[in-house]
């Protein structure tokens, strides 16, 4: 997404230089002064890391093409927005000066498109609020974090490419119409943004797992529980409501047994005296006391019994596991 000098007019380039430098001065003043030495060397390492990460080509599934990350969001998550903005500036400057990637007149424009938008707009306005929202409710999970990072990367890259289109258009260096240029740039950067987002999310998850102290602002990640209140309520609702639309016809086995004249006899002699909700019906004595239709109630009772049995078995299993681990100690 680097713009080159020849595609930027001096007016646009100069304006972007002024804007990007002002943001740079702001970011520099915000750096923590008491730990500058550690921070600066960390920023140097991160800058080189992003430069190297940009060189890795990742296969885009189903396209046969490959893409790379731009790294603004990754830097913001690892270093914080102000340090990330300065680091991104240094990476872009090295790319412009030493590797003919970008340019010195277009440096300001590139710093705005690839640094400012991600570090000072996407990170504080999308990533952090969403992370805080779930964190306050103690519902942050690894999956949610990955989705947030992916969405942030996509939005960041969309705005970045939008910046490229408008700056090129304002520079009057191409005869392509604005709509055509937008139509070309936005969809392709949507796919690239998706890949960048997934890579960033997976990389952050990996770093969080192995060295969480390297992440600028850590959020506690809760494990997804296999059962929770919502799941139980949902199951009970299905049992209580969907039972009304259940077929009254016999199932396959009952149908086969009926054919051989077995079911009727077995029902009356074995099943009926043992089962208290035989054939999914409330016993007649109780049904007379309750004035409403009890079909749904049977489903709810059945599910509740299953949950209770599962709960008891789970407790017993956990107790046994704890006893086993205590024995080892």
């Amino acid at each position, binding site marked *: 997404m680097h713009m080159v000098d020849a*595609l930027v007019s001096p007016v646009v380039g100069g304006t972007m230089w002024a804007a990007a430098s002002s943001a740079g001065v702001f970011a520099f003043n915000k750096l923590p002064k008491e730990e500058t030495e550690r921070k600066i060397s960390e920023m140097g390492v991160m800058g*080189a890391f992003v430069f190297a990460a940009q060189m890795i080509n990742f296969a885009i599934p189903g396209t046969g093409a490959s893409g790379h990350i731009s790294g603004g969001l990754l830097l913001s998550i690892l270093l914080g927005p102000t340090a990330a903005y300065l680091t991104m500036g240094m990476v872009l400057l090295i790319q412009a000066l030493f590797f*003919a990637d970008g340019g010195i007149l277009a440096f300001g424009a590139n710093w705005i498109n690839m640094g400012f938008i991600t570090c000072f707009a996407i990170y504080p306005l999308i990533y952090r609020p969403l992370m805080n929202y779930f964190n306050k409710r103690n519902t942050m999970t690894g999956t949610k974090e990955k989705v947030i990072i992916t969405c942030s990367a996509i939005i960041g890259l969309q705005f970045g490419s939008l910046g490229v289109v408008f700056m090129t258009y304002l520079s009057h260096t191409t005869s392509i119409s604005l709509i055509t240029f937008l139509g070309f740039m936005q969809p392709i950067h949507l796919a690239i943004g998706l890949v960048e987002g997934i890579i960033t999310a997976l990389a952050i998850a990996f770093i969080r797992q192995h060295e969480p102290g390297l992440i600028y602002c850590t959020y506690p990640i809760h494990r997804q529980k296999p059962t929770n209140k919502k799941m139980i309520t949902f199951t009970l609702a299905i049992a209580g409501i969907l039972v009304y639309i259940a077929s009254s016809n016999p199932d396959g086995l009952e149908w086969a047994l009926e054919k051989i004249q077995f079911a009727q006899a077995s029902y009356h002699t074995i099943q009926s005296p043992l089962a208290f909700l035989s054939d999914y019906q409330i016993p007649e004595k109780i049904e007379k006391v309750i004035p409403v239709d009890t079909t749904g109630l049977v489903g709810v009772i059945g599910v509740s019994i299953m949950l209770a049995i599962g709960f008891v078995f789970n407790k017993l299993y956990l107790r046994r596991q704890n006893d086993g681990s205590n024995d080892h100690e």
Partner: protein
Amino acid sequence: MNERKSLLQSMFDMKWLEDNAYKKSAIHQLHPTVKIIIAMVFVIKVAATPLSYMFVYLKLLLLLSLCLYVARIRVTELLKRTAPGLVIVSFFGISYFFSYPIQSAFFLFVGVVVKVYLTISFVLMTVASTGIDGISNGLLWLKIPRLLILQLQLTYRYLGLFVDRVNAMSLSYKLRSNGNKIGQGIGREAWGSFVGHLFLGAMEDARMIQQAMALRGFHLNSHLQKVAGPTKLQWIIGMCSIVVILVDL
């Protein structure tokens, strides 16, 4: 929008730049600050010149060629490094053929390609004849904060370390896949772990280097010394160069 270079290409670029910085010529001896200012003026002049002003581009091309001759930098080497930029910009150049008559479109196309070549080449020539330390001194003299210059130097120096590691990791990934994934990029099963491993491994290397530097007495304030500014003669040469660049015959 520039095309990404291969890992080895980038390593060669760094070596090429470092090698050129140690040559001796009149341009190499010019103060870095003067060279940075001249490069900025040159780039702005190229960017501000309309595409149809072919004689101005011709003059700037002659100036660039003269500088390359004096600095003893080979044109073919520069062309190789500007190629990715030229390919990308050709896309914009082709669009002229849909909007203008064929003759005008051809001149505009050539104009935009020459424009890209001039801007990239002049900056590369400046950097190749100055080196990272010279660039740092030039920026320091221009009152850029020491910390940022130090960060620039550290990032540049760490690049070799990281590029080396990426190269080794990519090679091992390709070898492990028995040659099936050569040229395809890193598969999605390794997206997170590849970047994560690269980060953690290189951080470990960087920490060791940082500790070695600290043991040798490295300190932020002592690292970058105050540099001498350009002499009067160098300022005069710089001003004359700017006049030559800006004035059209």
